[in-house]
């Protein structure tokens, strides 16, 4: 047995009381789903093995496993396991609880009612599973881990089905372009080159090129130096046009790690960790990141590229001028 396997055995043995309590609660709520304890544990174990164990190099503790199990959407997971195993009762409950909502989501996203119905039918077929491998029916429910809500998962599945439906009707269109037609999308950037002509213009061009390269490197390095959560916030706001209230919604839950990372040094959090995240809070987080980027940007231009303060201002002006033309960002590659 692999070391991971025996480690998990120990962790699950230590967490058995919690797991049993959760399983018993699910059985009490849904006694007729026919889900055996071994199946429930197998599902949870698969999730821990796939998502939790490899997420960090730090060893997993039994308390973390207990916390993980207690935070699962266990009733949803119980229903999903029942459906995956073909329980008629589980399927009936699922249909009762979720079909109307699924139809609403599909109708909201699809172009026509016919498309919406096609998507719902397709999703049901996938959820049931028409493929059999080694005697086991492959139900899409088996991919639901119980970490998020079942309803949210269904929303995600339907969204992807709509994207696939659109792809089927378009040839040679990238997935990115297609997904930008589903719901709101970000605008595409354009590039332009600066005209060059004459000796003076050539010298000017070479000087400007030097400043441009320095600016691009400095802004790229400044961004790269931020923490991942800061980068993500900036990308959501600027690259995807996410509104402040949308970002606030993403981090509203007290248990959101994104929120936790931003609030780590916040005095307000120490006073009241459950305080609501307002748009102004998100704006403050953004402003802190801007200040950090500006500081790193200036530092690099001065210390690495040897520019004087007035040259730093020239770089900033050039970058702003080039926002219209875009040439400073030519040949930009992903970092």
């Amino acid at each position, binding site marked *: 047995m692999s070391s991971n396997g025996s480690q998990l055995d120990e962790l699950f043995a230590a967490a058995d009381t919690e797991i049993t309590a959760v399983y018993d609660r699910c059985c009490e709520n849904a006694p007729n789903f026919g889900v055996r304890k071994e199946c429930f544990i197998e599902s949870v174990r698969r999730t821990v093995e796939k998502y939790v164990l490899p997420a960090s190099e730090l060893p997993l503790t039994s308390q973390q496993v207990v916390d993980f199990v207690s935070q699962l959407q266990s009733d949803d997971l119980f229903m999903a396991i029942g459906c995956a195993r073909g329980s008629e009762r589980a399927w009936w409950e699922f249909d009762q609880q979720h079909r109307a909502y699924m139809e609403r989501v599909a109708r909201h996203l699809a172009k026509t009612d016919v498309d919406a119905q096609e998507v719902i039918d397709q999703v049901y077929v996938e959820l049931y599973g028409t493929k059999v491998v080694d005697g086991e029916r492959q139900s899409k429910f088996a991919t639901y881990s119980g970490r998020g809500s079942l309803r949210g998962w269904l929303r995600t599945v339907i969204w992807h089905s709509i994207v696939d439906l659109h792809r089927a009707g378009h040839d040679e269109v990238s997935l990115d372009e297609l997904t930008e037609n589903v719901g709101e999308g970000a605008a595409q950037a354009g590039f332009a080159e600066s005209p060059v002509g004459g000796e003076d213009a050539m010298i000017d061009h070479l000087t400007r090129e030097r400043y441009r390269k320095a600016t691009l490197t400095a802004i790229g390095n400044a961004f790269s130096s931020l923490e991942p959560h800061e980068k993500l916030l900036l990308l959501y706001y600027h690259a995807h046009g996410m509104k402040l209230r949308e970002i606030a919604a993403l981090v509203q839950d007290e248990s959101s790690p*994104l929120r936790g*990372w931003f609030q780590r040094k916040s005095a307000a959090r120490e006073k009241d960790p459950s305080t609501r995240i307002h748009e102004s809070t998100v704006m403050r987080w953004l402003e802190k990141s801007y200040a950090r980027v500006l500081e790193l940007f200036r530092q690099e231009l001065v210390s690495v590229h040897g520019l004087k303060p007035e040259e730093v201002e020239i770089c900033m002006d050039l970058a702003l001028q080039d926002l219209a033309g875009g040439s400073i960002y030519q040949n930009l590659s992903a970092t």
Partner: protein
Amino acid sequence: MANTQLNNIENTRIQAVLARYLELRSSGQDRADLNGHLDEDTINAFTESRLDERQSAPVVNHLVDCSFCRHRTVELVRLTMFFDAQDEPVAARETASEPVSVSSVLSGILSRIFGSGDAAVFAHEERPDDEEKSDPEADEEEPRS
């Protein structure tokens, strides 16, 4: 006051430069093949803030580098907000006196997809071990001990 104005000007300038850089960085990002993207379960759990720090860290790292997955999370946040704002209780379906069997629900779906020939008749399979346990429990009112 002058310092504040200067700081606001600097703030605005760096915002504008950064915004442009980020837009173009995103559009220039290589798209990993679909197998390199976050799966539906993870995307959903992330947008619902259900992942702890341990699980969130690699997800955030992926999102920083993957424009496609970021876009998915943005759309799902918007979708969630849309339906939360509607705040309509989903009307319970009229319940029949007997539960409708899943086989009849799925038969209807499959016959719409594949046609109504004999080959499309859906036969729901219960696993033998499930069947043994489900029958005696079908009318149970008490929870399992």
